[in-house]
């Protein structure tokens, strides 16, 4: 499925909408004072409210509201003057109250937009229908108890912002681009840690197909709880393939909820529309409507940090980075912080950008890890680049040094020292290499002098080889030219 999106599915057009669940980075839960920290012993982070004892009442965490408003401001959405919490009723053992407190008719954040960059380089605007506050459920643990299910309610009541898009995406790649954009944004504005392994950022994808040119949408399937960018792309593509195969074989897509199995790389039905719950939404009488004043909106707007697009623009204008480099670096808050440190320490933004989008990103991609898990931190990386700048090593040697550093063999200076990689800048020593190479290759040297410029590379290469890469390339060039006179 690597062909260009437009022709990816022949006569079929894919329609995708995403519901992203971003766990808000509040210290306590949305309706209780219990901690939201991840990974505690089961049921140790639960108050009487979280386990829904008789008589308890929810109290809204103001910080969760603050964060939702921040998101609204960041996507230039309408933030509602008045929004309402509703009860979404269904029975499940990890849903202690028998209902989830969510927002239905009147969400806190109304329509907004997000721009994504397509592979073609074009920009596409994706509509954000709404974003609303709700509480997360607990977890059911099926594995550890034979014939029984364990319930861990630590996560119950964790605040979520559910961000619902319009069905504006036309390929899995667009969906991923959109999801990444939101992922970056929520981290920039500090409302979500973006940790996908821990489930802090996950999505449901509504997927349908229709013949190209057809106005109305096809019947959609909802893919539940996908928690990595890679899985989003794979799940959507496998589901699209399933739907197209089904229709082309004369079948019909039914509206249903499906689960993506990343091991088998398939989606399978969880429940159909007929089996779907009637959630019996109604306004929660235990909570007052959330009232947001214009003054509060202004205050939150003023608090917003620099957003990715603003930062990209600034990097291009002030630091002279290319649009590509600036785009790659600002697309992740962690990467752009890494860059900030490296650029500041080296005093060379362009060099830093080249190395971060080049060598560093290549290594991260190869190992499929995040910048946060990079083996070399920003300070150590900056030192390496400084050694290029002060001519201690060449850029080529620096790559080897980085490899050694990546393996944990020490700092740039330690690696250069222990491997004897310090660049030779002593003109006398380099001249000796140059003379030897010319002496060994007289005919080639004649060709060079005769105007065959290609030979220059050969000679520089031979000298570099003889010096084990340590000769300063600029000096080598200069000396060879002198010898040609």
């Amino acid at each position, binding site marked *: 499925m690597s062909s260009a999106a437009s022709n990816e599915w022949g006569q079929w057009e894919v329609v995708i909408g995403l519901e992203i669940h971003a766990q808000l980075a509040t210290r306590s839960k949305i309706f209780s004072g219990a901690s939201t920290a991840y990974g505690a012993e089961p049921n140790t982070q639960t108050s009487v409210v979280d386990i829904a004892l008789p008589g308890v009442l929810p109290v809204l965490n103001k910080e969760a509201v603050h964060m939702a408003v921040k998101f609204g401001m960041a996507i230039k959405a309408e933030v509602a003057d008045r929004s309402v919490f509703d009860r979404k*009723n269904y029975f499940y053992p990890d849903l202690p109250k028998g209902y989830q407190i969510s927002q239905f008719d009147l969400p806190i954040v109304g329509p907004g937009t997000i721009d994504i960059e397509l592979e073609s380089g074009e920009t596409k605007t994706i509509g954000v229908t709404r974003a609303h506050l709700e509480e997360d459920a607990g977890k059911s643990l099926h594995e550890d108890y034979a014939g029984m299910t364990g319930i861990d309610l630590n996560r119950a009541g964790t605040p979520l912002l559910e961000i619902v898009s319009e069905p504006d995406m036309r390929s899995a790649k667009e969906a991923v681009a959109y999801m990444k954009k939101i992922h970056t944004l929520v981290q920039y504005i500090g409302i979500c840690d973006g940790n996908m392994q821990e489930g802090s950022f996950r999505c449901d994808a509504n997927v349908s197909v229709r013949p190209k040119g057809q106005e109305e949408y096809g019947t959609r399937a909802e893919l539940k709880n996908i928690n990595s960018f890679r899985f989003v792309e794979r799940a959507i593509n496998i589901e699209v393939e399933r739907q197209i195969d089904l229709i082309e074989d004369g079948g019909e897509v039914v509206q249903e909820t499906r689960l993506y199995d990343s091991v088998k790389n398939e989606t399978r039905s969880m429940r159909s529309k007929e089996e779907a719950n009637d959630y019996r939404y109604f306004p929660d009488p235990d909570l007052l409507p959330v009232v947001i004043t214009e003054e509060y909106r202004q205050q939150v707007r003023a608090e917003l940090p620099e957003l990715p697009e603003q930062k990209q623009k600034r990097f291009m204008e002030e630091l002279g980075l290319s649009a590509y480099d600036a785009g790659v670096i600002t697309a992740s808050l962690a990467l752009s912080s890494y860059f900030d440190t490296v650029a500041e320490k080296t005093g060379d933004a362009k060099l830093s950008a080249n190395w971060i989008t080049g060598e560093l990103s290549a290594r991260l991609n190869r190992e499929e890890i995040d910048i946060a898990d990079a083996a070399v931190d920003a300070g150590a990386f900056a030192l390496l680049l400084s050694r290029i700048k002060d001519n201690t090593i060449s850029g080529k040697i620096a790559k080897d040094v980085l490899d050694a550093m990546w393996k944990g063999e020490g700092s740039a200076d330690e690696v250069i020292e222990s491997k004897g990689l310090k660049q030779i800048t002593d003109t006398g020593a380099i001249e000796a290499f140059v003379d030897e190479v010319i002496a060994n290759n007289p005919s080639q040297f004649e060709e060079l002098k005769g105007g065959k410029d290609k030979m220059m590379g050969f000679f520089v290469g031979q000298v570099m080889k003889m010096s084990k890469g340590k000769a300063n390339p600029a000096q080598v060039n200069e000396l060879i030219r002198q010898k040609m006179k």
Partner: protein
Amino acid sequence: MYHTKSVTELSAMLQAGEVSSVELTRYFLDRIKNSDEKLNSFITVCEEQALAQAKECDERLKAGNAPALTGVPVAHKDIFCTDGVKTSCASKMLDNFISPYDATVVTNMRAAGVVMLGKTNMDEFAMGSSNETSYYGAVKNPWNLKAVPGGSSGGSAAAVAARLAPAATGTDTGGSIRQPAAFCGITGIKPTYGRVSRFGMIAFASSLDQAGPMGQSASDCALLLNAMAGFDEKDSTSIEKAVPDYSADLDKPLDGLRIGLPKEYFAHAEGGMNAEVEAIIKTALDQYKAMGAELVEIELPNSALSVPVYYVVAPAECSTNLSRFDGVRYGYRCEDPKDLNDLYTRSRGEAFGEEVQRRIMVGTYALSSGYYDAYYLKAQQLRQLISDDFKNAYEKVDVIMAPATPETAFNIGEKSDDPISMYLSDIYTIAVNLAGIPAMSIPVGFSDGMPVGMQIIGNHFEEARLLNVAHKYQQQTDWHTTLPEEFK
């Protein structure tokens, strides 16, 4: 003897050192032990804890500066969560539930110094008007052991009427304080919605539930309400408004008081008010007139809608409030569930009584997709109209007076097979909850030996005025100090 003393008097005696809290507590524990077999008004008696609390209170009293209610024993309706004590809500579902925390009402009253004698019987989950739906059996009316005490706070009403406790707490969703107060001849007040915290009070219908005191007199209720009321950050619907001293204005003269009489409640009364009840109420109204009040006929044109609106809103809210009782984390769980669905259906089916199940079903239906607009939404709109009726009325009058119930206490079993006629016994009380305003019931006479209650209904946050109006009447009458023969 102590049981003929009001809370006001007992409190003065305690402060003066004329009696100790331990002595008083033991006295009432004995009374419960000796007489409650007849009434079944308590689900749990907390002898040990009560005596320990009383001992503490005596120390506080000795040390001086103890708050006014220090050492006074009271009973809590078993709908309030009490730390370390069974909190059953009169349901099999919570028969095994020991609450690990105190309701705010319990905390507040404890801080004010009261001693908890025990937990009183009630209709299961406060759903009922006769106290017959309790898992622990019906409560009897101290005035006639064959009659119901009313409900849902029937245990509290009976216990206070028989003076097994000097006072008790109750809750009122559609009349659950006022109707049993009327049936048992005691005084009870349902405050403004939001005046008393709902935290720790097991929810029936969240937008209607409100806790209040049930006592021998308006002045006792004022003392108790002083302790109960106040903003609670744990209850988002509680109101951040200073609590006045409800005892301060009890003696204010009633000259010029404008009393509204809803024409819908009199004459061709809806719900068919009993003629003798009506006559007794008219006598009480004449006494008010004699005290300088002016009687004004008013209209509450939408009052006929109250019962149907209530029986959509309350079941709808209860249907989801009771979802948490699922047999998973606490409470009743059926034996050997086959699977999850079996666990839910049998746990709930076996532990909820008939009336509770009926209301859950009605409410689930009313909230269902396709019916929501026609029932719940419509009911909320009508609720606004009912509320507006009162708003308009209070432009003309200061308080409204009405019967509390169409008739005196009916016999046990008389209406238990006829839910509709049972629902109609709350016809005069329900509108008040829908409007969120305060109201009380005071005893104003007897019909065939059974107490008759009159309602005094006020505008939002007018509790002090209601208590004043009630107190002035009680200074001139002795209905509220008359005790049932068997419990004298």
